[in-house]
């Protein structure tokens, strides 16, 4: 544990009868790029606002580098926020917006001017210092909001859906830009988003939140490959989840019965080892074969009928109806060799058991 870790300990926040954050405990290491991911209303923004001091927890403790900041006034915290709506001061120039925090802290004029200029250069707005926010585009306003927060060199920078208002192309560009800036300044970034792709692209660590609690926390790849629950499996990317009954354990595998198909999952990839469970496989890890005879040995397989094929350029997405009625999604990369299966074709869907996982239902 380094000095400036942000620790949230058993924090609960209720609004009337609604529990927004429920006994949350979380440590965000110093210098990391941390994403809080979840659907709207999951408590991610409330968590952020409690760290900023804009909401006070009902219970629990928030510490920053060992210092208890739970009830510290927002203007006394070494924390700055990039708001979703940017909240730029419309009556001030871009320079005055960026200088606002430094002036409140009583920095001298020369230092303020130098730091503001440096920060505007960092966000590539050096030419725009004398403009008013209303004269800038959405992407430029977003960068002013970032500069205004970063110039104060906070211990932690909080970002509340900062890219939500930008169009897709600009959003991709700003994701890379934000990541670059974070690496450059080395400040802890806590990024709240509902966009799973954004969270995975940018963050070192992602926490998936639901109903005020953390469902799973970890590195993006780790969570994607081995989700802790059906919720995470569906929220981070797409998953095929097949209802299955655990029948036994043997040779480092858990065997299950899924609608009459006997399938195996490596024990290390099982979150549950008894009762009813869901067997999951990501669509890009499923393969198509003409029939069960063509399935490579060692692969698990089920039969089905292609109901839909849509070509998306990099891949073709197939929907295959399994004998028990539900549909499996299969992504076949467009590597230019396989001849496409047509809707109505009888196929076998197969996968390596090492690519499947078992979660509680």
């Amino acid at each position: 544990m380094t000095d400036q870790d942000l620790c949230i300990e058993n924090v609960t926040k209720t609004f009337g009868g609604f529990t927004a954050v429920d006994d949350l405990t979380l440590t965000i290491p110093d210098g990391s790029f941390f994403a809080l991911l979840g659907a709207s209303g999951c408590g991610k923004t409330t968590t952020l606002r409690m760290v900023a001091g804009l909401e006070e927890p009902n219970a629990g403790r928030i510490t920053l580098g060992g210092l208890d900041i739970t009830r510290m006034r927002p203007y006394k915290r070494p924390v700055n926020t990039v708001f979703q709506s940017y909240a730029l001061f419309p009556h001030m120039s871009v320079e005055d917006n960026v200088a606002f925090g430094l002036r409140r802290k009583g920095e001298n004029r020369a230092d303020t001017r130098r730091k503001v200029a440096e920060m505007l250069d960092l966000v590539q707005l050096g030419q725009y210092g004398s403009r008013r926010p209303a004269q800038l585009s959405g992407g430029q306003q977003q960068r002013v909001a970032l500069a205004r927060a970063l110039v104060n060199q906070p211990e932690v920078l909080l970002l509340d859906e900062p890219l939500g208002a930008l169009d897709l192309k600009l959003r991709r560009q700003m994701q890379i830009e934000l990541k670059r800036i974070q690496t450059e300044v080395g400040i802890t970034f806590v990024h709240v988003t509902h966009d799973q792709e954004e969270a995975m692209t940018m963050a070192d660590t992602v926490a998936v939140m639901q109903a005020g609690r953390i469902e799973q926390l970890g590195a993006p790849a780790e969570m994607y490959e081995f989700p802790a629950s059906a919720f995470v499996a569906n929220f981070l990317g797409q998953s095929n989840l097949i209802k299955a009954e655990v029948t036994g354990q043997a040779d480092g595998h858990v065997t299950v019965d899924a609608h009459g198909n006997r399938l195996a999952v490596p024990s290390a990839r099982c979150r549950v080892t008894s009762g009813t469970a869901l067997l999951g496989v990501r669509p890009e890890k499923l393969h198509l074969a003409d029939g069960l005879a063509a399935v490579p040995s060692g692969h698990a397989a089920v039969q089905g009928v292609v109901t839909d094929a849509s070509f998306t350029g990099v891949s073709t997405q197939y929907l295959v109806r399994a004998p028990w009625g539900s549909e499996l999604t299969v992504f076949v990369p467009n590597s230019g060799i396989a001849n496409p299966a047509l809707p109505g074709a009888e196929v076998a869907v197969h996968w390596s058991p090492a690519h499947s996982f078992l979660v509680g239902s």
Partner: protein
Amino acid sequence: MHGFWRWIAEKWVLLLGFVLLAYLFVPIAVVMLLSFNQPASRNTTYVLDFATFDFTWNNWTDMCGAAGICDSLMRSIYVGLSATLIATILGTLISFALVRYRFIGRGSTNTLIFLPMATPEIVMGTSLLTLFIGLQIPMGFLTILIAHVMFCISFVVVTVKARLAGLDPRLQEAAMDLYATPWQAFRLVILPLVLPGIVAAALLAFSLSFDDFIITNFVTGTSDYTTFPMFIWGSNLRGIPPQVNAIATAMFLISFAFVIAGQLRTRRRSARRAATS
């Protein structure tokens, strides 16, 4: 003939516009014109007859010439400024409370604040008079001031509230996040953004107070605290002094100057904005 009707058909909206403008401005033009007339007697102050029009600067050079006219004007300005100051401060605070905070009675306050605007002045005047008599408050400056503050507050609240409602509440949070104390956040961010609304409310309050007659007439009682509108009303019986026209014209020109200044400011700002973008 055909061409004439076509011309009418094409220009009738424009013509209608001119007629409407004339309808609005002719009475003001008459007052302006009469301010340069020396009436034969006080009973003909409002007779505009070009045959007997007697051009003079007297009404302008000797504005206070008629007995009591400038005393009443000063009283109206004094009452107007006092009522504006109090009503603007109170009204602004009420607006902040109504927009920013949730409290018991907020809904009913929001509705009741409109009541003085909706009440006929004659009703408000009589009920205030009854109240002041019942409380044994001596009539005069104090009762006039209380009455004016009361009916001005509603207008201030409505005006400032509209401005505040359009303000992103995150601005205050952003300021506090950037190390501003609540007072600094108010002074540096909120106040400058709400100020145009407060100024507009103050101007409105002043003009409402300055020309109020009905309520003032009731709450002056038998005191000799005669405001300008009451002076005019009173002298109407004996004949209105011609200086009234000069003062009315001056008042119109002052408010007109305010409007022009405001327009120029907006135009200059948008020109600057256009130049930099």
